[in-house]
């Protein structure tokens, strides 16, 4: 089994510390072990995919990283430009507020009765809150707040332009088509200006063309904004197309870890996805039937 340091060498390639180092992460719910001693690293400017069959514990990893769960055991070290942080010690919402880890959700969670633009402005809550002097200056209508607001608008406009939603900026988010909602959730997370973006099945329910578009968007975020992306995905065209590094989970354990080509041919992964090769254990009669069937 690979050790975390070995993978760091493989993923980063240089002496720089990886963006995220997950060490011996374990999450138990009562007697149920959802994640069992998982370690991996995610590099800066890389897309790290976490894949695995249903119930493998992928979303639980995300919930631990983004403060929704408190891990039972383990260390989640984030190498942030501001310094090193241990995510498991930071209270829920502060993970987004202070160390800039953003996420999206498996079932889209937009503010559906607010407009598309408002969704992106809400994402910049903390910047605007500071600019509005925690509401007091904002109430007085000071120039400083108005400047911050127009800056926030610029950022929102930039991302709306990028995903082609600029014409729908004043739509209620809940009225958008499904694919647009997916993209909006990704750019809403980007508006928090994260260093690590966790995407929980962003391609779920998208048609092939939309998911190709999503690939482009994710590659753009990685290449232009140089942040780390952590991606849970079932759509192998997305995973194999853009991932730099893949971690495979099964029943809460890490079964494989490496570059896409390596993971694709890993017998452990094939076993987890397609089941054991059971030919030898078949009763002789059944084996005979099968071979006869092949002949005829």
């Amino acid at each position: 089994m690979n050790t975390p340091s070995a993978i760091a060498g493989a993923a980063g390639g240089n002496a720089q510390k990886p963006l995220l180092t997950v060490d011996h992460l374990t999450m138990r719910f009562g007697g149920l072990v959802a994640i069992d001693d998982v370690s991996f690293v995610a590099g800066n400017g890389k897309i790290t995919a976490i894949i695995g069959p249903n119930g493998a514990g992928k979303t639980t990893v995300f919930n631990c990283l983004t403060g929704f769960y408190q891990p039972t055991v383990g260390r989640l070290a984030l190498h942030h430009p501001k310094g090193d942080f241990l995510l498991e010690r930071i209270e829920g919402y502060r993970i987004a507020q202070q160390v800039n880890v953003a996420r999206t959700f498996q079932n889209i969670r937009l503010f559906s009765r607010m407009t598309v633009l408002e969704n992106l402005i809400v994402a910049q809550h903390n910047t605007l809150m500071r600019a509005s002097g925690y509401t007091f200056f904002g109430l007085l209508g000071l120039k400083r707040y108005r400047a911050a607001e127009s800056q926030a608008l610029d950022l929102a406009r930039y991302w709306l332009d990028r995903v082609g939603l600029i014409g729908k900026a004043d739509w209620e988010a809940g009225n958008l088509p499904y694919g647009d909602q997916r993209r909006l959730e990704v750019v809403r997370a980007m508006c928090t200006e994260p260093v690590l973006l966790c995407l929980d099945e962003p391609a779920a329910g998208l048609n092939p063309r939309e998911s190709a578009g999503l690939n482009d968007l994710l590659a753009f975020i990685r290449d232009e904004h140089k942040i780390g992306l952590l991606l849970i995905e079932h759509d192998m065209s997305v995973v194999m197309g853009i991932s730099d590094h893949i971690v495979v989970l099964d029943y809460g354990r890490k079964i494989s870890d490496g570059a896409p080509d390596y993971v694709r041919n890993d017998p452990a992964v094939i076993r987890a996805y397609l089941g054991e090769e059971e030919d030898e254990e078949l009763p002789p009669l059944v084996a005979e039937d099968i071979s006869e069937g092949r002949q005829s």
Partner: protein
Amino acid sequence: MAADDRSGMLKEAGLAALVAFALAFGLVGFKTEDVPGGLAIVLRFGDVAMIAGLAFVGRLALALLRRGRPRPALSMALPFAIVMLILLLAEEVPLPAADWGRFLPFASPVVNWLIFIAAFAIAGRAGWTLWCESAAPGTEERHRIMGRIGARARRTARVLGPIIFVVALVLPLFPFADRRILDIAILVLTYIMLGWGLNIVVGLAGLLDLGYVAFYAVGAYSYALLATYFGLGFWICLPFAGVMAAFAGILLGFPVLRLRGDYLAIVTLGFGEMVRIILLNWYEFTNGPDGISGIPRPTFFGLAFQRTAPEGVETFHSFFGLAYSPIDRIIFLYYLILILALITNLFTLRIRKLPVGRAWEALREDEIASRSLGINPRNTKLTAFAIGAMFAGFGGSFFATRQGFISPESFTFIESAVILSIVVLGGFGSQIGVVLAAVLLIGMPEFFRELHQFRMLAFGAAMVLIMVWRPAGLLAHREPTIRLDGGGRSAAAGQ
């Protein structure tokens, strides 16, 4: 097919008549009346029959409308409405020739007017449908029409606000604005202010608060106690009452942070009752059920509204060299509550466009997503509770100074329910909607005092009608807090 249709309609109308009969038989059929020597039961089966008959005819007209036959509905409703109107007007202007009133269905003019309005509404619907030339106004059609009316209402809402504001501003100057009208207006404005305050908590932050009257009580008692114990004036106590109520809001907010929806509603309901019961039982401090009397009236920059001022205080009328008139004080109170309400409104409009206001709405929409964006749910909810409660505190202290007497009686659950209905019927988060709903729900029962104990039926009927016609509230329209070009020009591009 047609015969089938006809029997269906008759069955529907018959069923409505039966229900009306069953309801009216007990409620209207028997009436106790004081006669010499005790109570006598007066039988009013004529009225019962009239009610059942009207229900039959009205339902038949509606059934015709719904089955896409507006012409017979119109021919039924229109003559009826016209006859009713003539009779009603004839009764208003007593003609010497005959007692026209006896042809009216009921003795009470208000009920007769309501029946006329119903008939007129049915006739109007039928006429409208005919005019539109739409043969079958199905659900689709109706939604479309309602949508169009809604869009128009939205446009008028922008004009409506200033109009209502100007009317409210000049209301006391009208000759018909006597003491009664002004008193009702003050009451309505108080509820508008409370509605706007609760709108922050319920409409914006989405925290269902059934105990809002508790903060109203805290504000009222803060002022009353400070005034009676320390002799402080209204203007000093007003901010203090707001602060006390906001503090109570935070006190309530902390334990309910994790609760949502029904659970939150139950706990806030309990909190409202707790405050009332404390006020009732802490006799040494609050004077319990006896209440606090002799609460000082507000002054106009130190000028009292009295005929003869106590020593050291000048009166309003002597300072300005006017003749004393008791209505001066009422007009002053009217403008006072108008200003307080407007402050609440402007504050809400402003804070909606600030990050904290958007965070409230985001929290209402999805708390988990808000947390993932770094919004602190605890502080955000607490500010909503505190600010909402603060305005209730201002309102409460106005209530205390207006009444001059308060007791826990005034702060029962029904008050919270009324304020919440104003917010719900107005349309969550809609400022103008709150005004309309308050006028409807508070003003109307005052005008319908003639109906005595059935007055609250008017309240109930208004609620049912609004919920049937506009389930999301009178003006359920959410204006975006920000637009790309900073103005309202791209509004039409939305849908």
